[in-house]
């Protein structure tokens, strides 16, 4: 094969662009996680009539930075009976998929790293790789708490994978595409064009299903059985300390943000402004900027909603959790899929 210099240069420029985007998104995730953890502590403190972190820096904003620095210099303990290699690799297997998912998230008009045509499938496929990392972590620790936590985590994650898929199919049906950018563009206009206010009641059911199942996937409080401090010590990451623990932590909060980004993208109009005069008429770079702001504002609202749920609900029991998925959300999701299919085929397309 002949090597073409022009093509090679184009490829190099392409890779450099993606590399820059990748680094930007990595920094973005780190900042978001620092902020969300802080916000979590503030929200929970407020709801429980406490003050929350307010000593480190102005209003306590440096609290999570201090926590991160502290985790960074903590001793790394690998228990004697553990499988050293798997123990070290497991945090990477959990973190990397949580990060790679961000390739397809539409942050704004033209601000997707790469709008893959298989977007929705890509998100579900990549994010489920984390389960392997969790099982690996639990198994490699050679600790009964960790192993129990890992099994619980795996059964919970796979149970709620199915409702997530069924809920995501509804916006896909309505927009006829798996590409997240196309799904967002179909919701352009005003608030009435968002999927949340479309196709009553199928879209609303799907949105609620995605929220519930997504909370279970992101392991937040009503469904935090795999961590369950009072029952399993800390679940699959009992033996982890220092930077490896920090990676699990990072992945968990990155996934929580992915959930809110997906809810925004699939149901809340993505980066589109809610009313036309708040930026809908703009074009070019200005619209990119305004749409990015709208995306972040919506994500912030969903994150606050998640934190509110997290600080309000008690933890469910494991049998309730499994029943909720297999006997509740899965049958409802299947029925919802068929009804939406009929609606799209016989009504929308006419």
């Amino acid at each position, binding site marked *: 094969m002949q090597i073409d210099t022009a093509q090679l240069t184009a490829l190099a420029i392409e890779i450099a662009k993606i590399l820059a985007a990748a680094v930007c998104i990595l920094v973005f995730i780190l900042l978001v996680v620092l902020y969300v953890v802080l916000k979590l502590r503030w929200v929970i403190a407020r709801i429980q009539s406490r003050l929350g972190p307010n000593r480190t820096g102005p209003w306590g904003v440096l609290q999570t930075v201090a926590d991160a620095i502290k985790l960074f210099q903590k001793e790394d303990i690998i228990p004697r009976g553990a499988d050293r290699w798997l123990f*070290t690799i497991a945090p990477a297997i959990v973190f990397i998929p949580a990060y790679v998912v961000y390739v397809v998230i539409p942050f704004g008009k033209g601000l997707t790293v790469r709008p893959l045509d298989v977007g929705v499938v890509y998100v579900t496929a990549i994010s489920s790789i984390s389960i392997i990392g969790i099982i690996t972590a639990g198994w490699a620790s050679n600790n009964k708490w960790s192993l129990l936590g890992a*099994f619980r985590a795996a059964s919970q994650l796979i149970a709620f994978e199915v409702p997530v898929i*069924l809920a995501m199919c509804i916006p896909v049906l309505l927009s006829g595409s798996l590409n997240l950018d196309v799904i967002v563009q179909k919701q352009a206009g005003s608030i009435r064009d968002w999927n949340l206010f479309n196709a009553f009641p199928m879209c609303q059911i799907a949105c609620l299903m995605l929220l519930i199942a997504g909370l279970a996937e992101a392991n937040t409080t009503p469904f935090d059985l795999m961590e369950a401090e009072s029952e399993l010590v800390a679940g699959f990451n009992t*033996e982890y300390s220092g930077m490896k623990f920090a990676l699990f932590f990072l992945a968990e909060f990155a996934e929580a943000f992915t959930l809110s980004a997906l809810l925004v993208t699939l149901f809340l109009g993505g980066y589109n402004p809610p009313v036309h005069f708040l930026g809908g008429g703009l074009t070019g770079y200005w619209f990119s900027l305004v749409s990015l702001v709208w995306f972040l504002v919506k994500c912030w609202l969903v994150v606050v909603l998640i934190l509110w749920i997290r600080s309000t609900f008690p933890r469910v029991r494991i049998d309730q959790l499994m029943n909720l998925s297999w006997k509740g959300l899965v049958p409802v999701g299947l029925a919802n899929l068929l009804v939406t299919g009929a609606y799209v085929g016989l009504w929308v397309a006419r």
Partner: protein
Amino acid sequence: MLAKDFLAVGVFIIVGIVFVAVTLIASYLFRPYNPSGEKLRTYECGEIPLGPAWLQFRVGYYVYALIFLIFDVEAAFIFPWAAALLGFSRTKTLAVLGIIDMVIFVGVLALGLVYAWKKGVLEWK
């Protein structure tokens, strides 16, 4: 085009690996290292652990995993159907056929779920 699309995924995976490696190595340079027998012992709330943790696990987990596998494979069929239905539905016959197909497909799947439910495998014991 396809190769170009997944180039981004490849670059992201590499950046992820580099990030994990750099943080682990950097923290290795800063953190202390004072292992002791007590510290390295498997944590069981202060008890001396009895035997390894690599035990047999309950078959219930396995059954759940099997049911999940069926539904996950099904997702591989539902996603393309969901993406294509709107386009197909411009012709009425194709729309009706597409919906009937999915009713049969989901019907068989739901029968399986009902069977598992009646068999009692969905009871967490």
